[in-house]
């Protein structure tokens, strides 16, 4: 071993490490934060209006501090506009659509990821092609088909059409998730004694849970918010969903009716809350899923 002592020490000038400037000048710092605040205000302003107007007896189209806080808007929409029924309809349609979509995209995504199929590439891209079709372009045939099959003004019609709208993209998303789950995990489960179906449910699906959460979350939010298909498929009062009730309240009938902004805002708050609840309930899984799922796409 070489002796190390004072005489062995060699003086070396080590240059300071190069670091990126973290803060910049005070002026740059202030301008940057000003920009952040402006952007945040731009995005938050509609929500501020929504929550202020919902509790304001004299709400206008502009943000104002409520002169008197009131629950009258909420009472009115439940008593006079049958909003509870619209909420229930939306919950049924969005909930059932989510169940149907999750089940379908999970199996389809797994199949496209794992099974040896002839023309699998064609099938996969055909699914994607469906996604590129504008929804409004299919309105007339969908209306005709729904009429023919007696699916207008029915939960089943709304559930099927909402599921069909969401399927192509979510099948691709789930295929990406399953591609990122190592095959060896399920092979290990087969060798450990499980059948292929049990291995899918016990090993693959729990690992793909973030992907399933993303599919469920996106599916629920999409079905909850969809209005175009509801407009063409529903004309009975008791089948209205929240977006349709919201849309009708917002209509001015060619200028003959004044928009009741307080009612619109109250509906908006109730329209928003379930979406926020779903997002916050699944946000950790969704963030994980959205980050990891993109690898397989």
């Amino acid at each position: 071993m070489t002796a190390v002592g004072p005489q062995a020490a060699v003086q070396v000038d080590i240059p300071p490490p190069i670091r990126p400037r973290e803060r910049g000048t005070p002026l740059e710092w202030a301008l940057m934060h000003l920009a952040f605040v402006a952007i945040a205000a731009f995005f938050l302003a509609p929500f501020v209006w929504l929550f202020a107007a919902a509790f304001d007896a004299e709400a206008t189209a502009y943000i104002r501090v409520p002169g008197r806080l009131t629950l009258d808007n909420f009472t009115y929409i439940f008593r006079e506009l049958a909003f509870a029924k619209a909420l229930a309809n939306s919950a049924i349609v969005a909930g059932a659509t989510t169940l149907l979509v999750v089940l379908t995209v999970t199996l389809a995504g797994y199949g496209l990821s794992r099974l040896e199929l002839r023309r699998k590439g064609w099938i996969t891209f055909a699914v994607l092609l469906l996604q590129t079709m504008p929804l409004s372009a299919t309105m007339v045939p969908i209306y005709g088909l729904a009429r023919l099959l007696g699916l207008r003004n029915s939960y089943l019609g709304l559930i099927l059409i909402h599921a069909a709208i969401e399927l192509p993209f979510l099948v691709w998303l789930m295929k990406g998730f399953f591609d990122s789950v190592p095959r060896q995990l399920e092979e290990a489960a087969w060798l450990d004694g499980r059948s292929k179906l049990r291995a899918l449910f016990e090993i693959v699906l729990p690992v793909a849970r973030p992907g399933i959460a993303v599919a469920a979350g996106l599916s629920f939010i999409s079905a909850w918010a969809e209005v175009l298909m509801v407009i063409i498929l529903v004309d009975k009062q008791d089948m209205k969903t929240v977006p349709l009730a919201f849309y009708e309240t917002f209509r001015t009938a060619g200028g003959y009716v004044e928009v009741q902004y307080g009612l619109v805002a109250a509906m908006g708050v109730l329209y928003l809350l379930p979406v926020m609840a779903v997002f916050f309930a699944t946000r950790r899984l969704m963030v994980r899923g959205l980050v990891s799922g993109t690898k397989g796409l």
Partner: protein
Amino acid sequence: MARVEYDDVWKRFPGSDRVAVHALTLDVADGELLVLLGPSGCGKTTALRMLAGLEHPDGGDIRIDGRSVLRLEPKDRDVALVFQSYALYPHLSVRNNIGYPLRVRGLTLAQQAERIGRAAALLRIEHLLARRPGQLSGGEQQRVALARAIVREPRVFCMDEPLSNLDAKLRTHTRTELKALQKDLGTTTIFVTHDQAEAMTLADRIAVLDQGRLQQLGTPDDVYRHPANLFVAQFIGSPPMNILAAHRHDGELVVEEAWRIPAPAVRDHHGGTALTVGLRPEAITIEQDGGGPGEVLVSEPLGSEVIVNVKVGSALVKVRTAPDVRPGPGTRVRLAAQPGEVRLFDPSSGTALD
């Protein structure tokens, strides 16, 4: 405990023009540790996966204890496989990972706990049982994967390069433990690796594969000292066997037109007097007397030995010497080959002639 037989097994993957496994015939004895050794893409993993039921052969038969397993699902073959990536279930704790095959088999909780405890103690991972695989190091994950395999007490262990993700020091340590564990359990084991040192240290017998074909099957000593062909000669050993052109002349071999060694008796071949000579680096001795056909290019000290690179004719010969023998570059040296260690190959086919 089981005997495994591959009987003329073929496999070609759809869309590939290459045969992955070519007429593989192998017999693995009860309790034996057989290593399938070969470079990437030689078909060793495919052969292993066919035994486990994860791939289906296009032809031939695979038998365990005399019974064909081709029609059995992986779950019914009673074969445990340790994957290169370990394939631990990331959402289950180590305890549940190890216990999974027991739960599947319907053992009671008490039986499961007893067997998990025994496997964990054997692999010294008792302290890890509550953790998830993501919280373990590579070496720990490897032990958990082994524990999951042994806890079932399968008829056959299959191991697909289970040490390749470990660092060099841990790999050496683990392979010693693995060998002891296998001998202790006495379970028939097929171990796949591309690392010839791993194969030499672990195996009862080695099956060397190249391009889907079995090149040689034998004990590590056999494969090392009597390679069946030039591929095996050069694949096994570090540094590999020196392969040199030679011809027979007056009962001697003239190697690289410069070095004469006594010719061993060989069977007939089609190459006339031309031959290919194989010499392990330790089968050559160096004499530094200032003359001779060799010129030292460089010496590589490795601590316990020195690899001396000697130029003979147009060839480079590697010689393994004692640590104190370090001839400098440019030194002329005389080389001597140990007579019993000279291997001869047919220059056209590459097959061994002794």
